[in-house]
């Protein structure tokens, strides 16, 4: 996994609450057996006027000029500003894969759905929670000022606005450590192999029906 340390990125505002993972990456693209290449289909049904299917050349598609990702001023954005309950719905990790493939490395929202939030950390994306009133203000600032960028520092747990305002955010210590260092979860877990084995030995006696190979 790629590490996340700091980011100074252009912000794109997606002003909708309850954005679900079906909207982030529609189901027809979930048929892929690969992890990469979902970026062109991020928010497919909102982003294009024609119906998207896997394998289509994005250059031949009809972009929806009214969708915020298609505004020229937000081209190259790496910070997504969002509303409450972002990423609700299905557990598809294709959602963070699509965001990451598109170039989004940090999300700022008042709240996230649990599974999506967790999936972001497995893919080098930092989902930042800020107070709803603060997020609301960032939306106004971003919309008012073309080229609006935010600086994110994971180690210091801060977001800095162009005006120099420093906003603190919380993040779980373990997740922060893994994201800062781009660590592989499985490798870390296997350091506990003795404890897993001991647990299994004990459970085989307590609950043998759980081991019915």
């Amino acid at each position, binding site marked *: 996994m790629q590490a996340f340390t700091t980011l100074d990125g252009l912000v794109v505002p997606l*002003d*909708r*609450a*309850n954005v*679900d993972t*079906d*909207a982030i990456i*529609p*189901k*027809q693209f*979930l*048929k*892929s*057996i*690969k*992890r990469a290449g979902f970026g062109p289909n991020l928010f497919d*049904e909102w982003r294009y006027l024609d*119906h998207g299917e*896997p*394998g289509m050349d994005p250059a031949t598609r009809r972009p929806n000029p009214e969708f915020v990702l298609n505004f020229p001023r937000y081209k190259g954005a790496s910070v997504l500003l969002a*509303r*409450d*309950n972002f990423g*609700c*719905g*299905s*557990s*598809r*990790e294709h959602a*963070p894969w699509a965001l990451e493939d598109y170039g989004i490395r940090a999300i700022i929202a008042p*709240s*996230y*759905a*649990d*599974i999506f939030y*967790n*999936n972001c950390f*497995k*893919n080098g994306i930092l989902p930042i929670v800020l107070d709803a009133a603060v997020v609301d203000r960032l939306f106004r600032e971003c919309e008012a000022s073309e080229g609006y960028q935010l600086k994110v520092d994971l180690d210091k747990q801060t977001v800095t606005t162009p005006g120099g305002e420093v906003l603190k955010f919380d993040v*779980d*210590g*373990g997740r922060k450590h893994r994201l800062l260092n781009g660590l592989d*979860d*499985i490798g870390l*877990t*296997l350091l*506990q192999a003795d*404890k*897993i084995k001991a*647990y*299994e030995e004990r*459970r085989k006696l*307590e*609950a*043998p*029906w*759980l*081991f*019915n*190979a």
Partner: protein
Amino acid sequence: MPGLTLFEKLWDAHVVHVEADGTTLLYIDRHLVHEVTSPQAFEGLKLAHRTPRRTDAAIAVPDHNVPTTDRSQGIADPISRLQVETLDANCAEFGITEFRMDDVRQGIVHVIGPEEGLTLPGMTVVCGDSHTSTHGAFGALAFGIGTSEVEHVLATQCLWQKPSKTMLVKVEGELGKGVTAKDIALAIIGEIGTAGGTGYALEFGGSAIRALTMEGRMTLCNMAIEAGARAGMVAVDRTTIDYVKGRPYSPRGAAWDQAVAWWNTLHSDADAVFDRVVELDAAKIEPQVTWGTSPEMVTTVGGRVPDPAKAPSEVKRHDWTRALEYMGLAAGTPIAEIPVDKVFIGSCTNSRIEDLREAAAVAKGRKVAPNVKLAMVVPGSGLVKQQAEAEGLDTIFVEAGFEWREPGCSMCLAMNADRLEPGERCASTSNRNFEGRQGQGGRTHLVSPAMAAAAACAGHFVDVRKF
């Protein structure tokens, strides 16, 4: 010291290791695998030269991409076909049991787990699918995970977790006739919202929940994720144990007695403390119909499409306006005057035998209305289909003008060929009414199986209690 909640008991029984900050390595007893969220996990294992830690804990089934029409020619869509073939190949390579598309036990992963006794009380159950919450109906800790965690569970049989907060949703009293577990689920979501359960594990309790069958409890726990909760659960009781007994993967003999002794402790203690308690009066719950693009946008069948001008906040006013525009509905329209184009009875929420019986009881002797282009019934598994046919339910449906299909996820999320066309309106027994969920531009209204069958025959939503 206060007693323990069911969640705490299940959690404590699965702790392998705790880090200083409380992050816990939790042991996973059952891993359900399907074709959509597993290929990248198997690929990850291969790239790292790893193998599954316990093949006996995993079980796989293709469900999202499978056709619900004649399967003798295989899957027509080459991309869907490749995904299912990839699952077949991965399971064969790693030695994981799979119920393939031609196996009578094949079906929706959340239907076959309980049906086969693969889901048992006290287990931790995970699957790369958010509706894994379904299995909590058995007094299990069950939740959906992403593909990275699918790989993690395959490799280590564990997951890193932090304990959730706990919420008791207490439903007391008796449900009215024609009111089902689906209506309870939608009423709860209407009450607490789609993010109301975020960060919580929900436990459903109270006399109305005790009175539900296992299938009703599964419907309810299935929808916990639509309230934002990764896990929903119901305490073990006689109903649970009777359901589990004698299933192919259930314990037998001495192991059964040993299991039951533990299972009987799997309920929240009387003095357990929850972080939040929500109470609903069962008698006041009426048949529910969603009107928008989020499950919390729900009202009763006697209600009307709400007016965004009366929304409680600016953000909600914006959402409601957008939703009504997408749904092609005007504020103030009575729900019972909304016509439907298609009807879908199926999904991991409502495709079990009792759901089909409920729908058939309404369809019996009636005909699908002429304005309804397609009414389809998709059983949750091959065994549910077999049982329904043994009871003659297929004949009732077919005589009424419904299509009787092969098992799978089907039009709940339209990954196979079953879908809505742009602008089509559907009465659906599934779980999500998101934009485009059942097909781009499709308009979904979530209802119970009986309400869906009634809508099919009336051609519009109708109160099944008066139908």
